[in-house]
């Protein structure tokens, strides 16, 4: 009975926590500019994420190690440090983008510009980390995040042509604007396969003291939670394709993105979008701050838990305090969150192999996982998707920087 409750809670939290500024912005841009053509990127990214999440939960349940614990132990400090450097830098950029997303949502609601929101928003995020517990953060933020389901409602009300939508699930070449197309594909992959999500998930499994009996639950949460989450991203893309594209609206700014639900849901569309972004980015900001703190604490072997007083895990608390404080700075100077989002999503793709390749090694380690180690399917799916994302990123990021 308790496990059924945990199961449904797990699925709900992964659905509520799935969308964030990266997935919304990339899907909205893709839909507005290329119609259904880029749906395949969401499909591919979500498929890979399902495997990664299942793997990180399995590692935690069987070996009682988070991914970061295991990377440090198996590959040693020098290698770990480079993984830390790359991953944390990118995650920090994503955190800036999420805080910016909250600020922008507040800007369109109140009219006060987002740089003014940077400090208060960071403070509230920090305060919740300082005072809150793990389950409050995970469950509270994702329950609020369920408002993002309104994208599905909007998509259904626009009566999409399902056959042409389905044809978007297979990759096709664009007629024009090839560099933008591939750059968007890379950003979508980066937004779907966020490594911080796997760190967060495996740390959560340790905080909740998972053991082998959780393996089936883990599998179901990964499969259903991430599938539903991926459907939300697809809904955003479909809404943008049907509401913005026919009117020639591209999503260059957040203000334009805010119009996407007004066609399907005239009365509440605007406010639903603003609230979706507010809650989704808020939840993501909490998760990323936690994930970065976990990364340091586990890697260096400090005491870490979101459920004890800050003075009992001082360095853990110090890391998120510092990180959230720093993240507010670029926003106060008015750095455009949409630009940061697009760049950080593409960079996520480019740096994926850094954390995921060692992770694949760990998942085949008989010492950690015994008979629960990866089969060839998991290895192949993750390996191939990571390779694709990496190659696309390396090719398209320079093109986008030069061309844009």
């Amino acid at each position, binding site marked *: 009975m308790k496990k059924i409750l945990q199961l449904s809670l797990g699925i709900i939290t992964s659905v509520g926590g799935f969308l964030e500024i990266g997935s919304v912005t990339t899907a909205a841009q893709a839909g507005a500019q290329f119609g259904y053509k880029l749906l395949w990127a969401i499909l591919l990214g979500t498929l890979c994420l399902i495997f990664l999440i299942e793997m990180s939960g399995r590692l935690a349940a069987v070996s009682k190690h988070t991914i970061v614990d295991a990377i440090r132990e198996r590959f040693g400090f020098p290698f770990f440090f480079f993984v830390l450097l790359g991953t944390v830098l990118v995650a920090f950029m994503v955190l800036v983008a999420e805080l910016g997303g909250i600020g922008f949502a507040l*800007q*369109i*609601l*109140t*009219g006060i510009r987002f740089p003014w929101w940077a400090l208060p928003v960071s403070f509230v995020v920090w305060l919740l980390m300082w005072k809150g517990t793990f389950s409050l953060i995970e469950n509270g933020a994702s329950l609020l995040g369920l408002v993002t389901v309104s994208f599905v409602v909007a998509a259904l009300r626009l009566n999409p042509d399902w056959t042409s939508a389905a044809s978007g699930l297979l990759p096709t070449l664009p007629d024009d604007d090839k560099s933008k197309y591939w750059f968007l594909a890379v950003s979508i992959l980066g937004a779907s396969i966020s490594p911080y999500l796997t760190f967060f998930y495996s740390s959560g499994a340790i905080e909740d003291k998972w053991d082998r009996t959780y393996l089936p639950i883990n599998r179901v949460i990964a499969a259903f939670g991430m599938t539903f989450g991926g459907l939300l991203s697809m809904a955003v893309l479909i809404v943008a394709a049907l509401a913005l594209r026919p*009117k*020639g*609206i*591209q999503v*260059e*700014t957040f*203000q*334009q993105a*805010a*119009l996407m639900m*007004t*066609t399907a849901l*005239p*009365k*509440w*569309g*605007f406010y639903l979008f603003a609230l979706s972004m507010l809650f989704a980015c808020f939840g993501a900001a909490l998760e990323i701050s936690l994930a970065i703190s976990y990364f340091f604490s586990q890697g260096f072997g400090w005491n870490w838990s979101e459920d004890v007083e800050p003075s009992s895990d001082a360095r853990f608390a110090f890391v998120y305090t510092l990180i959230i404080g720093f993240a507010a700075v670029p926003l106060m100077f008015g750095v455009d969150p949409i630009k940061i989002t697009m760049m950080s999503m593409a960079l996520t793709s480019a740096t994926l192999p850094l954390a995921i390749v060692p992770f694949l090694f760990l998942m085949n380690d008989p010492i950690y996982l015994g008979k629960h180690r990866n089969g060839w399917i998991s290895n192949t799916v993750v390996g191939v998707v990571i390779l694709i994302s990496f190659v696309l990123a390396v090719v398209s990021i*320079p*093109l986008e920087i*030069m*061309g844009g």
Partner: protein
Amino acid sequence: MKRLLFATVILLVSCKPPTPAEQMDAILSWVGSAIVLGNGWLRHTTPDTYTRQTLTLSHDQLRQIGAELLKSPPATIDSTELDGALTRSGTHLARMAQLVEARNSPGFNQVLDSLELDQKALKQLSDKIESSQ
């Protein structure tokens, strides 16, 4: 190493500023946003401040991109016609922002109608540029 340098040079050469067609798309995107937004405001479903700010933003963007475009207007279209259409829609956008502040819905409605005409004119120009490429 040589190959790498060669590739970089190719990349740098192939990098070019946005084409006139892309600039027209951007302009139409902002005009389109303003129209959707205007309709929303008339139905009282978007807040005043956001509407006004976004209309002002559209106006600024239109002026900026328009000025860039007019520096080297494409030969296939009449540049005075383009200038006229851009100026008219710019004026309408600015006017709409003012009317939101004054909460003058009937007046806003009228200007919105004219903006939709501007959109058609701009769309025709854009199609001409695109077909000539």
